């Protein structure tokens, strides 16, 4: 069994670390560490408390970088690692694995360990770069064990949670795709909110500490008790140079947190038998990949129900696009979404009804999120379906792929937001909504062209969307689609500009690939 597990872990490790994207992430880590530990002379610092700057000793740098790494793994780690079972499914190597004596639980445990090894290596690399940055800043003696302690106290639980949830979601066909990607985001936020709100109110519900997979509950509690303040800022932030610096010794384990931290680290392992229970073991019927496949997912059933209604709508929408011009190619691609994903019609109806029934466009945040999820794969679906070579044979599409896909996503967004746009035109919010849609279509095209999957855009968008929703209108510049009602003409201009830059980048990336 050990030989099989280590073979899976080794193969996953080699496959991941030979990817260019992994090298890029590791390079970015170095850049992040540099940015997050600015010199004191810059007026910014990694940790500040009530304006006091925490000196760059191993406790402070370890805590600051470990908490940022923990957040990065929690928010984005899932999207990096949740493709390993899918890879076996798509290459059909999984079918070979299914014909070996390897048990399903054994295979999934191997995949889980592979995920853990990747995330540990990732955080290990980040820790080493941060450690090196502490030496570069030379404000205090390096204490490697204190540094390591911060990482060991904070990160193991999120590593095991992300690794186990990725395996679980990949084992359940209905959670293995876009739905699982969105669900994970809200699962993480839910767990985060649960422990943070509990600690903010004095830890009144003790059992939630056992669900502190994100590590934030423990961190907040420890900071409250060692520093006696709630005003701690981690991440590059400003401080008051006139105030004396403080020396933060770092986090330590206390008796009351020992059991919760151990439980939070090992509880996710319970997800593995659940994953094995649902695992399709690459059976083409269960995985929905082979002959006689039936779309058993609830979304598939819903799609089948809507199809008869969507068909005439799509025909109506496609009717004017009869010519061979580039414009009609855009039109057809936008209409194609309704054919591929008939539930888009339901979204169109839902958006229209919600806009009319909700006062003052209050449903706009949800509407924008729905539109973003729907357009997320416009730029990537041809790569996934293997139809790109056929499309490139059509006039102008090869060279103008980026313009074509962007325009299709933008056009589709405009169709979906037709009623919100009409209503916002009555309230003078139409420029911000239009620029928001433009920005979304452009960034989804850029990230789709760069990564060739829709995941990156969904994660980036949801993180940004969460930030904007929680900003509640404090920063007009963040209000990209005008749903906080504070967007100005400058905001609209900013996001139009950012969208344009994204399009230029996407276009040059595409042309560079073609030239190769």
């Amino acid at each position, binding site marked *: 069994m050990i*030989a*099989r597990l*280590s*073979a*899976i872990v*080794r*193969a996953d490790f*080699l*496959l991941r670390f*030979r*990817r260019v994207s992994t090298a890029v992430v590791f390079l970015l880590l170095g850049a992040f560490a540099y940015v997050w530990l600015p010199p004191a002379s810059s007026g910014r610092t990694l940790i500040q408390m009530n304006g006091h700057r925490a000196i760059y000793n191993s406790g402070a740098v370890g805590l600051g970088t470990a908490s940022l790494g923990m957040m990065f793994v929690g928010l984005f780690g899932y999207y990096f690692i949740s493709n390993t079972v899918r*890879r076996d499914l*798509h*290459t*059909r*190597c999984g*079918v*070979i*694995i*299914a*014909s*070996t*004596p*390897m048990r399903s639980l054994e295979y999934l445990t191997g995949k889980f360990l592979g995920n853990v090894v990747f995330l540990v290596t990732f955080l290990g690399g980040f820790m080493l770069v941060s450690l090196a940055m502490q030496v570069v800043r030379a404000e205090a003696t390096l204490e490697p064990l204190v540094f390591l302690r911060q990482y060991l106290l904070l990160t193991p639980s999120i590593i095991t949670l992300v690794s186990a949830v990725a395996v679980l979601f990949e084992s359940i066909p209905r959670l293995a795709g876009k739905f699982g990607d969105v669900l994970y985001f809200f699962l993480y936020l839910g767990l985060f909110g649960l422990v943070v709100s509990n600690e903010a109110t004095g830890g009144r519900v003790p059992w939630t500490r056992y669900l502190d997979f994100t590590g934030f509950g423990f961190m907040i509690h420890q900071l409250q008790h060692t520093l006696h303040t709630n005003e701690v800022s981690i991440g590059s932030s400003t401080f008051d140079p006139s105030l004396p610096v403080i020396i933060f010794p770092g986090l330590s384990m206390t008796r009351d947190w020992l059991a919760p931290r151990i439980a939070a680290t090992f509880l996710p392992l319970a997800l593995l038998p659940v994953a094995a229970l649902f695992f399709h*073991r*690459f*059976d*083409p*019927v269960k995985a929905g990949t*082979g*002959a*006689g*496949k*039936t779309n*058993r997912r609830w979304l598939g059933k819903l799609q089948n129900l809507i199809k008869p209604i969507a068909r005439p709508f799509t025909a109506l929408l496609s009717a004017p696009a009869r010519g061979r011009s580039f414009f009609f190619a855009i039109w057809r691609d936008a209409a194609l979404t309704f054919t591929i994903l008939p539930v888009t019609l339901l979204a169109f109806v839902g958006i229209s009804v919600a806009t009319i029934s909700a006062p003052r466009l209050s449903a706009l945040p949800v509407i924008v999120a729905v539109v973003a999820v729907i357009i997320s794969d416009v730029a990537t679906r041809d790569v996934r379906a293997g139809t790109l070579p056929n499309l490139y044979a059509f006039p102008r599409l090869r060279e103008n792929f980026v313009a074509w896909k962007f325009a299709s996503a933008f056009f589709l967004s405009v169709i979906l937001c037709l009623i919100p746009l009409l209503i916002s035109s009555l309230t003078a919010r139409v420029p911000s909504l239009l620029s928001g849609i433009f920005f979304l279509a452009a960034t989804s095209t850029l990230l789709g062209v760069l990564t060739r999957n829709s995941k990156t855009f969904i994660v980036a968008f949801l993180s940004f969307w969460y930030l904007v929703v929680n900003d509640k209108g404090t920063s007009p510049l963040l209000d990209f689609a005008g749903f906080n009602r504070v967007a100005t003409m400058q905001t609209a201009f900013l996001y139009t500009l950012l969208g344009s830059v994204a399009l230029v980048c996407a276009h040059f990336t595409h042309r560079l690939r073609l030239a190769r």
Partner: protein
Amino acid sequence: MLAIESVSKQFRAGNYGVRDVSLAATSGVIGLLGPNGAGKTTLMQMIATVTRPTAGRILFHGTDITKRPNELRRKLGYLPQDFGVYDNLTAREFLAYFAALKGVRERKRLQEMLETVNLHGVAERPVGSFSGGMKQRLGIAQALINDPELVIVDEPTAGLDPEERVRFRNILSEIGFGRLVILSTHIVSDIESVATEIAVMKDGRLLTVAPPEDLLRTARGHVWTTTVSSDEFERLRTTAKISGAVRKPDGVHLRIVGTSPGIVATPVEPELEDAFLYLMNSNGSPPPA
């Protein structure tokens, strides 16, 4: 060694992938022949324990593998249709991975297999840079790495060039000694030189299982050859079942399969392609031998 008893696979939509198939085999190469959609892959997947039959039993050395799949999995080598690879691994790493999953520990076995499939010279190259034929040879190497008693190879020559196809056929004929090899294909020439028995499937049903000589015998008296003009050829294309046509200076030389050629023609000895066509057009029931 292998006994398939009234096996069916019915999908949730109600349609059958495989219907009431029975087959017994001991050793040698069984060629599973049938048009696309005949149910060959579904049958292969059921034998390989990848998917379960909805009715019937599959026995391996007397053990029902639908209930105890690991009894077969330990002695199975499987190369699925449209087999892909992990592009970033080298051929040796790829093979070592599957060797470990199958519990093979001897490192020299890897080298033996790489030499068997003639990939030892490129063992350290990423498999993403391999041609389709090289990938298929790597696929057969992983299937054989555990020295299996039963080898299942599903449409292995699809997409290969003629040279690679011949090379692959040679490998299959070499590995057929002392074990049972089930090879599915819709290309008759893939199996005519290597198969000791041929099973023909159509619409999920098994039409016949017989040695190639017996299949040839069934088509005897139903294959004709003639030479016609181009115009006549165009007319015959719609009315007769033509198994071969070669344009020559004196006209188009045809092989026609059927009870009557519908034109003046000379009866000839059938080839396997003719026999297969004859079976496919006998309304699902094999003609009397």
